[in-house]
């Protein structure tokens, strides 16, 4: 399936006009590491149940924006923001928003897979356990559901209680995806999820992403242009802390409006 996808990169993505059923809305958002302004007033509307790709040269602020959607960047000392991000019409900075609840509704997959040093089973049920859910049947059901949706069930079903650190790199990353969907989030954030994987593992994860968008709103950061065109409906191109262009993936890759975008996707810089 994915080999086909790489032959016809644009066939899998259907056209979609930005602005339809907005889900995550970024409103004149600025972000500061200390005095350094990493994002200069971003405006962006991400639709639900689609895959949106963030592309752009290193250091342009893709991860910074992504990590603000679940307020992970607040763990870094000395940061602050201006502007607003709303999800479902509610500001994530509203005092009534519980950061814990927010992060449970937004799964995150990191560049380097980071399974806990526990069994495969315990890794996946961790989000449930910390929410006080310890019923055996619920946990077992969740493990199967998540491993199936991460296309990992058949490979590990006989060794659920073995250490997760014994898995291969690609399996570990899919385990992290399984863990990220355990608390039934609506949004899945992925920061270069395939950059440490070989082509076969990458293909599996890409297949998975396309599968998962039925249930999740997915935002993926990637340096791989083919990957962006294979998996995403929408693509946002960032440059030096600015959003340069945000449009249909097909349009971005075939007929971008901005010169900078064209130069980047044709590989003339970055």
């Amino acid at each position: 399936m994915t080999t086909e996808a790489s032959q016809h990169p644009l066939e899998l993505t259907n056209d979609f006009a930005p602005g339809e059923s907005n889900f995550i809305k970024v409103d004149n958002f600025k972000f500061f590491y200390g005095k350094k302004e990493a994002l200069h007033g971003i405006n962006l509307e991400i639709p639900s149940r689609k895959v949106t790709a963030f592309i752009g040269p290193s250091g342009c602020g893709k991860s910074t924006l992504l990590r603000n959607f679940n307020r992970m960047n607040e763990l870094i000392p000395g940061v602050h923001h201006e502007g607003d991000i709303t999800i479902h019409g509610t500001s994530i900075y509203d005092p009534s928003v519980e950061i814990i609840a927010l992060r449970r509704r937004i799964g995150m997959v990191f560049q380097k897979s980071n399974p806990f040093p526990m069994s495969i089973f315990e890794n996946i049920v961790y989000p449930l356990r910390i929410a006080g859910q310890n019923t055996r049947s619920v946990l077992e059901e969740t493990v199967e559901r998540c491993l199936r949706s991460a296309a990992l069930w058949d490979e590990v079903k006989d060794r659920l209680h073995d250490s997760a650190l014994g898995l291969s790199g690609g399996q570990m990353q899919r385990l992290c995806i399984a863990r990220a969907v355990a608390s039934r989030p609506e949004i899945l954030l992925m920061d270069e999820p395939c950059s440490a994987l070989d082509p076969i593992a990458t293909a599996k994860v890409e297949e998975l992403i396309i599968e998962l968008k039925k249930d999740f709103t997915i935002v993926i950061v990637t340096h791989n242009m083919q990957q962006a065109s294979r998996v995403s409906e929408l693509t946002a191109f960032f440059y030096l802390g600015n959003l340069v262009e945000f449009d249909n993936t097909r349009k971005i890759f075939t007929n971008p409006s901005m010169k900078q975008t064209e130069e980047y996707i044709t590989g003339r810089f970055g």
Partner: protein
Amino acid sequence: MTSTATHSDKNFFSADGKGTSVFRLFRNRFLTGLCVALSLLTLVPLFSIVILVIQNGCPLLSANLFTQLPPAPGMDGGGFGNAILGTLVMVGISLVFSVPLGILAAIFVNEYAPVSWLASAVRFVAKLLTGIPSIICGVFAFAAVVMTTHKFSALAGGIALAILILPTILLTAEQALLGVPYAFREASFGVGATPFQTIWRIVLPEAMPAIMTGVMLAVARAAGETAPVLFTALFSQNWIKGIMEPTASLSVLIYNFASLPYAYHIKLAWSASLVLVALVTLSNILAQVIFAPKHR
């Protein structure tokens, strides 16, 4: 080698006697030999001590040593069961105070407020205290506990030892926490865990083997120190009845008996040394087995 290598193909890899190769080869071998010799030399004192203690400690070794009380001056027979128990009790008391305090402080310093002035102050004081002479801990516990309770006691001895080992436990625990990859914390926060859950379920278990290594170092130090217990717990010829009583310890027993003019007491002191070394080694091994990382 580069200077001689081009002379002829036959001698490509061998020193030809000209140039510097032979000298370099010789210097290399000489320095390697020197390093090996010096490493062996550092083992000499260690082995001499162990052999000496085993040689002198073994003759009296029997079950009686562990179950009987020390003999009166000039008498033979008996053991030092009360001193072993006393050492265990006082080390135990010191751990009860220092382990929770040290680990909690390390968690605060490393996890909650790593860049605060309070964290810097705690780190600075802990480093300063690791160098404190053990007798000062004894003096302090004497003033703070013995003078106020009007009693020499196991509690006072335990507190003196706790003060002695607290900085070691704090600093090694901090290093242990630092060694836990940030990615684990990120993963935990990312699925909505609170800082407390992250520390309790992920960070602490992962850091535990290294923390325990620090604790065992501290136990070894506490069990062997004489000065802090010398004038806080004093000594006792009898079994310990409560923690508010003067209490015997192996280290003070060795110190006392070794300076007595009775041959049997001196032999007892040797045996007590052997038991002390064995206890420390054994607890070290046990801790390594119990707290070995499970998911590697």
